[in-house]
């Protein structure tokens, strides 16, 4: 755990302690389990986003992918009678294709990531609404998929499975990012793409892989979200989720300039964001202020981090 991650952890502990003292409900098992579930759901696609941000890019279509793959998944399983494991694999495959398309457009066609994924955001959202005729896709009353439901929304030893899934993904991705050859190449490409190329790294392939990883993880989280909400209104489902992901990644120490970030940081960033949301609810702050609280905390966090870095540099 590096210094940044440690600072974030301290911040979370301080905020959590204050909230717990003022409102003991915060540490009630039910509230903790609920928050853990949300951390799991949001953590999945925030980890995904980190991979793209480390290349120096950005993935804005996260929310729309969650909506599109969500309605597709529900429709295939509920209305078309497709066995859910097939449907899940199909969603992951579709996710991979989207990432591949984004990656190719960015590396081969030299279109800026912001533009490519902004178009993705608009296109996938539009397709999702068209597919359902702007209606709600959901599980009909009495429809039951016990295994799928247990896997996604069940609990083991009181821990929500979405949280466990996020921890497993985080562990695997930690190894990939911080221990594997690919992870090192990813950091190198994000830091200085030209120098990486001069060192013989297939930079385009690394960037494409980052987008594929991102959309595959997003596809997995789309299935979890579909099972969590059980009814998907395609015009609002997943709105702004890309911004949650970017916020979590930035809080977790990723630089939008690329080449920096850590999985532990992103997970902690997600935890902090969810704790803040929870805090708004529990402390009776008007929920309309939700975004304002989040924005202020991120701003203060980034400012503080920058000041501390500058201070440390001067101390050297």
């Amino acid at each position: 755990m590096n210094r940044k991650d440690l600072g974030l952890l301290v911040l979370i502990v301080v905020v959590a302690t204050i909230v717990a003292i003022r409102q003991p409900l915060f540490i009630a098992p039910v509230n903790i389990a609920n928050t853990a579930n949300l951390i799991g759901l949001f953590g999945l696609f925030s980890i995904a986003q980190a991979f793209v941000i480390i290349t120096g890019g950005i993935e804005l279509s996260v929310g729309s992918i969650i909506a599109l793959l969500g309605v597709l998944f529900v429709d295939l399983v509920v209305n078309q009678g497709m066995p859910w494991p097939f449907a899940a694999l199909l969603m992951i495959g579709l996710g991979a294709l989207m990432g591949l398309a984004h990656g190719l457009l960015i590396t081969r066609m030299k279109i800026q990531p912001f533009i490519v994924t902004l178009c993705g955001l608009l296109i996938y959202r539009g397709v999702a609404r068209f597919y359902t005729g702007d209606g709600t896709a959901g599980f009909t009353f009495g429809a039951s998929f016990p295994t799928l439901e247990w896997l996604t929304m069940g609990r083991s030893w009181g821990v929500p499975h979405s949280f466990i899934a996020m921890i497993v993904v985080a562990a695997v991705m930690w190894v990939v990012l911080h221990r594997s050859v690919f992870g090192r190449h990813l950091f190198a490409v994000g830091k200085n793409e030209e120098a990486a190329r001069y060192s013989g790294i297939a930079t385009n392939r690394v960037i494409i892989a980052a987008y594929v990883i991102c959309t595959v993880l997003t596809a997995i989280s789309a299935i979890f979200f579909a099972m969590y909400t059980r009814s998907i209104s395609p015009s609002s489902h997943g709105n702004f989720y890309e911004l949650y992901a970017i916020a979590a990644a930035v809080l977790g120490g990723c630089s939008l300039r690329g080449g920096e970030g850590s999985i532990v940081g992103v997970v902690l960033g997600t935890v902090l964001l969810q704790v803040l949301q929870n805090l708004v609810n529990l402390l009776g702050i008007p929920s309309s202020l939700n975004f304002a609280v989040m924005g202020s905390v991120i701003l203060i966090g980034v400012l503080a981090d920058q000041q501390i870095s500058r201070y440390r540099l001067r101390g050297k």
Partner: protein
Amino acid sequence: MAEPFLELVGITKTFPGVAALSDVTFSIAPGEVVGLVGENGAGKSTLMKILGGVTQPTAGELRVDGARRDSFSVPDAIRSGIAFVHQELNLFDNLDVAANIFIGREPLKGGPLRLVDREALRAQVEPLLARLKVGYGARTPVRDLSIAQQQLLEIVKALSLRSRLVIMDEPTSSLTLTETDRLMSVIDELRADGVGIIFISHRLHEVERCADRVVVLRDGRMVGELAKGEITHERMIRLMIGRDLKSLYTPPKAPPGATALAIDDVVTSTYPGKRVSLEVRSGEILGLAGLVGSGRTELANAVFGIEPLLGGSVSLDGTRLRIDSPRDAIRQGIYLAPEDRKSFGLLLDFPIVDNISLPDLASYASASLVNRGREIENADRQKQRLNIRAPNVTTRVGTLSGGNQQKVVLAKWLSMKPRVIIFDEPTRGVDVGAKKEIYELLRALSDAGVAILMISSDMEEVVGVSDRVAVMHEGTISGFLRRDELSEHSVLRLAVGTTATKGTA
């Protein structure tokens, strides 16, 4: 003769440990064209920086119109009417011609709204364009102009400042012959209008053509001044060289082996009309000399797969290679230590060890997980072998000195199996002590059978380190020199393109 506009008396500039200029005295009168020549590193750019007010001389006196100036800043230089036309263009290609000329001092209207008065702007720009017969209008977007037209625009910009002295730094380096002719007649017109010009160029025949007087710098000193009648190629070259080159040369342990790298008729995008052929044998250091911009770096980049080969072929040990990316070159054992190592050679924010293992990370990994221990072990070994001065191998490369950074670049390639290493300016920004170590490493590598192609603009290095030298001039090889033919004089003559008197080579 007219009163001098600008006089320099005894100008000296020392940087810690080095004298960049010592005791330079010269003057320029209105309507006079002075050619300024000298090798790379002779002190020309330091002198220009002083004239532009960018740096202050350590000693000496600067006079404008006979009045002594104790401090001379950039605004002072502009106010005195000194303008620069740089080798690199400083234009905004997203704006039009008029906007570029008056950038930062646009005529305004509308009072507090501070709107640009486009009519007044055009009215001021058009006569200037007409005066130089540039052939484009005030509204032409700069991105539509050729390099030569942009160069002329820089001159227009200088004139719009009512300049009395225009300093041109290698203005013809990217111009075609007819464009150069155009520039020459512009220079004549300026001279007729009483504008002084300092013309810095490596193209000696152009200096010969336009200069009224030539000043030669060598090692920071003025070593000669030639009046109009005395300006010849040969005299300028003779003044430019003549340093005592310290003997750096260590002969190879064994005579060179078979040809390792063969470059045949290679065409690069910078000089699409020219072909380059050369061979480097294993165990040999081939120096590649030439002036800045002669196409050496582009050749290296083409061989290393960074720029496309527009023609010709590259072979290693007699086998023709297909190189589309640095990855392909590295796989064949062809490595490049680039000139701009901070941008291309290293990841400055990464530790030493990560830089060393980057191109060959897979060999430190099992099941694609990197074994940090093995990485550090190798880095430590390289650190010791190359004498990299750093607290330990996890030190960030950005904090190291130039020499140690270059050693990290070397360590990265030495950890693999080099067949050919191309060094582009291996000792640029490297201090004297580390230079010597790097030369020893080059020789040790070549003795181990590696073929070395060393691009260098440092004459001492070219003459002192190479076993053989190829000289490039404007995109093609102008000659090869054997060790016994090697001298500063012979290299420089080929580099400036004096082919007529080449002799037996």
